[in-house]
Every structure is written in C-alpha cells, then in structure tokens.
C-alpha cells in the first residue's frame, strides 16, 4: 500500500483513506503526552516549497514533520524571484540534487505538484495547487467529521461559498463522497459552476439548501485576492445572502448543526463573530487535526527509489489511453 506521493484525493482508494484516518487517531493520542516527538522520520528531510503564502498549512506541516523528528527546510521562494513554470523546472533539478526526502508544495498552478513528483525521487505532498486539490485539508476535514460521526455514511455536508476557485471544496467533497457522505454546494451563481459533478447537489438559495437538512455547514473562505473580476456585488451583500448571520446562527444552533471552516476566517463575511464561540463550531478542531493528519501522511509515504520521469510518465499516459476511437 506504499505510495510515493500524495497529489490528490481523486486517486486515493478507500482503504488508503481509512488507513490514514486510523493513523491520525493514533498520532493524535501523542498530543496529550509531555514528550510529543517520536523518531519515525529521524534523519529524513522535509522541504517546504510554498509559492503561495500560507501560515496555517505551512506551520501545520512543519509541526507535523518536527513531531516525527524530521529535519525541516524552507525553500526561500519569496526571495528567489521564482514565479513562472520554467523556473520551477530548474528548481526541481536543484531539489533533486539536494536529495530531500519529502517536498511539501503549494503553488497557484493546478497540476504543478504532479509535475514535480514525476521528476524527483522525493515524496511530494500537494499542499494546495490552484483550484485543483488540497488533499491533506480534505483528510483533516474528514477526520474532524468522523470524530463527531464515527459512521458518516448518509450524513450531509453543505459547502458554502466560492466553489469555482476552491481546491478545498473539490478535495473535501471528493473525499466525503468516498466515505458515503452526501455533499451539496451553495453559493452565488457566479461562483458555483453549472457543471459540478451530478453527485453533488447545487444550491444558490440559502433557504433551499437548509431545507436539504445538512448535518454540517462548511464555510469556505472568500478569497478576495483571487477575484480577478467581480463575482458578487459587495462583501456586505455576500454576508447577507450566503453568510452565517446572527439570525441564521440561531437557526443553526436550534438544529444542532456543526460548522466548519478551513481558515483563516473573514469575520463578518462568511460568518458573524458569534460563530467563533458557537459550541458546535469545529474550526479549532480542524486546526488541531491538521497536525495528526499530516503526521499520518508523512509517515505513510515512501520516498526514494525510482521515480517516473516526465517522459516515462507521458509514454505511460499514452499507453493507458490510446489516442481515440471516433
């Protein structure tokens, strides 16, 4: 069951998911001990390659790696003027020469971690690639949900917000569906694509979505910086139409729904301040579970050995999908 890389949720098998969630449970037990470190990855090196800023995911991976006794290096992306794909390839060659064991990568271009994975012996973990995938976020979300619903089959999760630009929505919905959870999207028509998979319910009306009777309401961060064009008229209007307002929180409390958010939260946009004190908010649980999930992932992957070079990979892609039969 060994894998070199974790690039997406789509290709993960159910058994692999169950295994990672189980492992995460074991690792989480360590947290209550006074010595939180174990020597699982002693002598191994983890390289953090973050082309997009992210305090939360970055530090979560760093803590996870250190608790496994790995050495953590930060590749100074910000100061190396690397932004374009061409330079990324040169960086990969450098990284391969450094023989690092793990590369945790975040980049705004979808598919880029996969490209790195095909050209290095290191285990590559996708820490978010554009609007494509964010697999460890999905795993920690599933883990957090399973803590509340040990058998999550048939439970309903309503994901609210900018689906179009959200890798979290894609990865988490894919993973939850693999666990038998029903998923629906809610957001402005300009941000919930018409062509989401048929297995996902699509709402643009808050009342209709609530009538679907979700167990968990999962709020996505409104990424203002990603809005190269205007997708909704104003933040105020967004909060009123799709946000958890004080009035809506009362209804959610009455129904006993859980609230999740991948963070960092825009208060007054996705949710009102009061949500932060809501007893069924799982937002801090998600942060905590991020560490044990990432420990499980690092411990699970097997770096080194042969790596499928880009050329070999291309050939294999071709072989597995013969040109076409019109």
């Amino acid at each position, binding site marked *: 069951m060994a894998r070199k890389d974790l690039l997406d949720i789509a290709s993960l098998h159910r058994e692999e998911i169950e295994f990672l969630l189980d492992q995460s449970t074991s690792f989480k037990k360590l947290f209550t001990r006074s010595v939180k470190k174990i020597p699982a990855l002693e002598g191994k090196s983890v390289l953090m390659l973050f082309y997009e800023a992210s305090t939360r995911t970055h530090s979560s991976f760093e803590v996870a790696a250190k608790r496994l006794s790995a050495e953590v290096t930060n590749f100074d992306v910000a100061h190396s003027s690397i932004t374009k794909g061409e330079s990324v390839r040169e960086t990969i060659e450098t990284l391969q020469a450094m023989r690092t064991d793990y590369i945790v990568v975040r980049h705004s271009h979808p598919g880029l971690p*996969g490209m790195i994975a095909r050209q290095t012996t290191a285990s590559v973990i996708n820490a978010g690639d554009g*609007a494509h995938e964010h697999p460890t976020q999905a795993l920690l979300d599933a883990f957090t949900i399973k803590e509340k619903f040990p058998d999550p089959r048939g439970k309903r999760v309503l994901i609210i917000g900018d689906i179009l630009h959200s890798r979290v929505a894609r990865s988490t919905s894919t993973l939850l569906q693999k666990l038998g959870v029903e998923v629906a999207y809610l957001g402005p028509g300009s941000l919930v*694509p018409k062509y989401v*998979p048929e297995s996902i319910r699509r709402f643009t009306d808050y009342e209709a979505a609530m009538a679907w009777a979700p167990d968990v309401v999962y709020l996505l961060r409104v990424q203002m910086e990603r809005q190269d064009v205007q997708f909704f008229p104003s933040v105020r209007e967004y909060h009123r139409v799709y946000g958890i307002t004080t009035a809506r929180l009362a209804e959610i409390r009455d129904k006993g729904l859980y609230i999740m958010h991948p963070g960092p939260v825009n208060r007054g946009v996705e949710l009102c301040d009061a949500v932060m004190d809501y007893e069924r908010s799982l937002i801090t649980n998600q942060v905590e579970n991020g560490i044990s999930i990432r420990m499980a992932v690092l411990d699970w992957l097997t770096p080194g050995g042969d790596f499928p070079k880009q050329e070999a990979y291309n050939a294999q892609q071709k072989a597995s999908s013969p040109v076409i039969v019109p």
Partner: protein
Amino acid sequence: MLLLQNARIASENSPVLLESDVLFVEGKIQDIGSGLAVPKGARVIDARGRVLMPGMFDAHVHFRAPGFENKETITTGSEAAINGGVTGVVMMPNTRPAIDSAAVVATVLENAKHRSRIPVYTSGCVTKNRDGKELAEIEGMHRLGVTMLTDDGDTTNDPAVLLRAMQYATEFGMFFASHCEVPELAGPRALNEGVMSYRLGIKGSPACAEEIIIDRDIRLARAAGAHVHIQHVSSKEGMETIRWWKSRGDVKVTAEVAPHHLLFTDEHIGDYDTNYKMNPPLRTQADCDALLEGLKEGVFDLIATDHAPHTPFEKAQDFVSAPNGITGLETALVSLYHFFVRPEKFGWDLVVKRYSAEPRRLMGLPIPTIEVGQPAECILFDTEAETTFTQDFMKSKSQNTPFIDQTLKGRVDLVILGSEILLER
C-alpha cells in the same frame, strides 16, 4: 520522366478512385491511361493499391520566423509540410516582429523563396504589431501579394478598428481571417469550460467566447461588404452560426476546421497533458460530432491544421504555464485517413476538396489536379502502410503533438512538385 503504374486517382469531384497509369514528363502530367507504354529512360514506380492525389494545402500554419526560430523556421516548417503531404502553406503573422508591414513581408517572402522547397505564402496583420489599435500598412503588403489579413492568435478586439480595416482593405480585394474569442470571457487559459475545467481546477473558456466573435465578425463583414474567413472553429454553436449566415447568402463567409477539433475532446487532457493545450480549446464529443457534420455538409470550406510548434522545454511545463498549440502538418493527412476515410466517415474526395482545392481557392491560387496537361503537384498515399510519429520521423523542429509515438494507418510515400520528387519513402 516518371511513370506511376496502377495508381488509384482521387479528385475533389468524384468519390470513386480511378485506377490508372500516370506519366510525368518535365514537371507536367503527360498522359493518363491504363497500360501506358514505358517511355525510354522513364523511371517506373508500381503504385498498385496506392492513392494518387493533388498535394495538400494548409492555409493556417505558424512557422515562427522571424523571432521564434527555436520553435520552427521556414525550412523546418516547410519540410514538415512535405513530410505530411502538404505542398503549399499560408503562414500566420504572429511573429516577432509581427508581419505587419511591406518591409517584413518582403523579408519573409525572400526567405521563403530560398529556404523552402514548396510555395510558402504569408498573411499580414490587420493591425500594427497585432495590438488591435492602429491599422497595419495594408496596401503595402497587398502590393507584395498578401491577400489574407488576420491578427491570428487574438481577435481584433475593437469592432470599430476591424470594421474600418474591412472597409479599407476590401477595396484591394483582400479578405479577413478571424481568430474568434472574446478575450475577457476566454481568459488566459486554453481549456473548455465544463466538467473537465472544474475537475482540473482551471477556469475554463466558454464556447460562447467563440460564438460571439464569429457572429460579430460576420456582421461586420456584411456591413463592410467584406469577405471574412472564420478560423479554427471549435464549437457546435460556432458551426451553427456560420451555417446560418451561409444560408442567408448576403455576406461572403468561409470557414475552416482543424483536425484536432474533430478528433479530441477536453477529456483527453487527462492529467494535465500539455500536448492537448491549444487555443481555441478542445471541447466536447458533441462539438466534435457537430464539426464533423459541418465539414461533410460544407459549412467548413476547408481543413487547416493551425500547425503551432513549441519547444519541448516550453511544453514540459505545467499546464497553466505551457503555451497553446500543437503541430499538425505531419499528422493531418494520415490522421484524417486513419480516423475518417478508413472507417468510411467520409471519402478521399472530401479530403482533396477540403484540404487541397478549397484552401487554394480561398487564396486565389491555381488548383492542381491529376489531369493531362496539368503541372505535377501530387502525392502518393499508401493506405495499408503505417506511420509512427517518432521524433526521428518528424521534420518539424517541435514535436508537440498528441500523436507523438503513436502509430496510425496510412503513409505519405511520394511527394512530387514540378519535375522534382520532394519526398520518397
């Protein structure tokens, strides 16, 4: 002197292949008939079972010179054309400098004369430096033989600029080739908006970005009394729009379709395979089916490849960073045969009409046929042999094609131009 014995002759006018001997003397077709006597000193080739047809003509290629000679040159591009059975091409002007003045046209054509074994024509830009603002030096280019104006690679986005260009250039008998996409809708990434763009997390370009400009440019042409040629149509609705305008008959519209838009869908992009990244993007099976119908019906006057070479280094980047475009000159004819003629979706007559005769008609060039007295410009195609598109096979500087290392049925065996054999396998 060259005698081809028992070749099966294809023409645009007949779905039936006529088996016959063909005698070439001094660059002309001297005689056609069965059991022709072998003249003294003639070379004889047994062409039994093989198809003889006029050389193809590609009205949409990028030879990247001047400015991007690392991707392609006029020499490598025209050799690629010959390799694919193509004996004439029209280059697009999105070079650096752009082909937007008489001076650049003169240089390019001079180069072509010395560096190519086949006729290479060029189109000229509608606007200076293709920036969509000021009209290019249109009459100057026309004097050097340019008839097609296009800002290909982009739409001439300001309709007022394009309308003025149309009003001006039509007076010289020039016509406009339109790359159709609203840039504000299409965005920078060449991927169809749909299930696949959602899955890959790339904001897609909706088909309406193409439909709007197709309609707009035909309306502008109608207003200006111009001839507009719609390039590389990718969508069903785009095809329908052209069909509707053609049925009205009050504006001169021609259109082209590329083999890759008939053959591939966005599903082929799979795990970010950049050999399927092109502009306009690959769409859905329904679009492919509609485009094929449009081709058979004649909504599309011609097939053109949009041969767009890029270096391996550029294409080996991630999907977002990699440039748009695939090469097509070397794979077009074989793939048309393999996927359409062989399974009898259409006949050789359509191939000859749409990929040899019509593009030359568009350019106002003489049309080669396999008839007595005609200049020799033809190819011999083996329908039973195979072609494997290896790196060694390819003559283009770049091999960015989904067909790389694929084997297809059919092979271009012989390319004859005048008294020369340009290619023989």
